[in-house]
């Protein structure tokens, strides 16, 4: 009798704590998850852009998921410059061929990977983009070359619906 009682208490104590912990977790998770993107935000996941009016050497900026997307029609020199860079020189090595499937068109998020500012076109030491916030320089392929940003500007999922229309997302 005397050694049976504590065991029963221990069991009840552990079981109650366990149920309490599961219950607390079940309440905490909805409270945390409600802050994640909601259904209406997720519904705006793709955008179609008509690029027929963009001339070589020009960039248009469109808004996708609240972020600017750069669509640049690159000149021959820019493509050549981007493709002739050796991988060893890059901070975040990526081939231009992988970033721009169609070499004439560079599509990427116009968001500096440092702290999220919008870099300026045709600026910086590498003829690509320059971020005015903390001084990151990007090349004609949108790759980081100098400054505090850790990665190249991100290439989103996109496809050419037809010759003149790009679908982002």
């Amino acid at each position, binding site marked *: 009798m005397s050694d049976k009682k504590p065991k029963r208490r221990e069991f009840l104590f552990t079981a109650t704590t366990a149920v309490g912990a599961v219950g607390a977790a079940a309440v905490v998770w909805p409270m945390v998850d409600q802050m994640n993107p909601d259904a209406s935000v997720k519904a705006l996941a793709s955008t179609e852009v008509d690029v027929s009016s963009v001339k070589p050497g020009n960039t248009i900026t469109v808004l996708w998921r609240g972020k600017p997307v750069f669509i640049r029609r690159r000149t021959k020199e820019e493509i050549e410059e981007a493709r002739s860079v050796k991988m060893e020189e890059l901070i975040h090595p990526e081939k231009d061929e992988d970033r721009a499937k169609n070499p004439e068109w560079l599509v990427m998020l116009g968001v500096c990977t440092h702290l999220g500012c919008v870099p300026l076109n045709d600026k910086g030491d590498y003829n690509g983009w320059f971020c005015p*916030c903390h*001084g990151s320089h990007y090349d004609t392929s949108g790759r980081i070359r100098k400054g505090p940003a850790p990665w190249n500007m991100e290439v989103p999922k996109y496809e050419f619906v037809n010759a003149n229309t790009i679908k982002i997302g």
Partner: protein
Amino acid sequence: MSDHDYKPKSKVGQWFNDRLPLLTLANHLTDYPTPKNLNYWWTFGGILTFCLITQIITGLTLAMHYIAHADMAFESVEHIMRDVNYGWLIRYIHANGASMFFLAVYIHIFRSLFYGSYKSPREIIWILGIIIYLLMMAAAFMGYVLPWGQMSFWGATVITNLFSAIPFVGEGIVTWLWGGYSVDNPTLTRFFTLHYLIPFLILGLVVLHIWALHVPGNNNPVGIDIKKPSKDTVPFHPYIVIKDGFALLMFMIVFAFFVFYTPNILGHADNYIEANPMVTPAHIVPEWYLLPFYAILRSVPDKLLGVVAMLSAILILAALPWLDTSKIRSAVFRPLYKQFYWILVADVLILGYVGAMPAEGLYLLIARVATAYYFLHFLVILPVLGFKERTLPIPLSITEPILGGSPNLAAARHGESKIK
């Protein structure tokens, strides 16, 4: 504390106090023995309480007219400025009040650093203060986002992106903070909620801060332990109340100067342009009170390490009671520390200045040297100084240097007590 045996005079008072000892508390606060040599640097605790109450009252009234929605926030702030009766006044008090709050808190913190108020037995008061300071920064940052101008939007973008520096989970955390894929309406509504909540958290912590203060009692310019109550103390009321009140009046003149004569000088013109996610302003700078930390962030060329350095610069303060190894509190008796103290003040001011300048060339170099020195001060100079420094003899009481004999006598007694 000597007020345990306090008994209200009236029968009703006694009846009430036996059930809820509020009158005992009031008596403790008025009679609270305070060192009689407290100078004007000690009046900033009261000034800070005033700042907090001002922010809460003006904030509540602004919230009656403000609309936390990405499409309407900017306009509702202009509506407050132009249409709401005295809206301009309330908003200018609130906006400049944030700066005044930080001005006062920096003086309060540097007062502690000079007189060693963070040392044993006041470590908990100090750490509570650091938590309050962190919450103040969070509240100020989120409040700055609410008008939904260009600086609001891009400030929010840059600061929330600091979290993306965390390896692996960083991007997920940022998306979670935003409630979307960029700073947008869900971000604004949650910032408004938290901006409303934090001042009340601060209020609660201020109560703990004062409670913890009332256990050992105030430090003082001489930095010695004193007997309470004694010849070295005066009751809080009326002595300190009058002194605090006078200092507060002087402070309010400065406050009013900003509100009425240069209400926008501490802000940025870009914030009168509505938020535009397509264009970043050419020159992003935070509010003046965050500039030193911003300079530290930018002086490190690596993203993650920059964020780590910036956070460490603040959190290192919490470890200060243990980094400072000197037994002597007040810099008055620490000739070397006194010099390093002023170098640190200059260092922080320099960091603030370069934080406002573009991060390139000479500015960047200065920022790097100043950042290195900031950490050197806390991690090397302070711990070593405690062992190496020859401190001056401290008096036995506050009254002694004025009334009791020559400093030599004091020195002799000090030496004596050390031998024991």
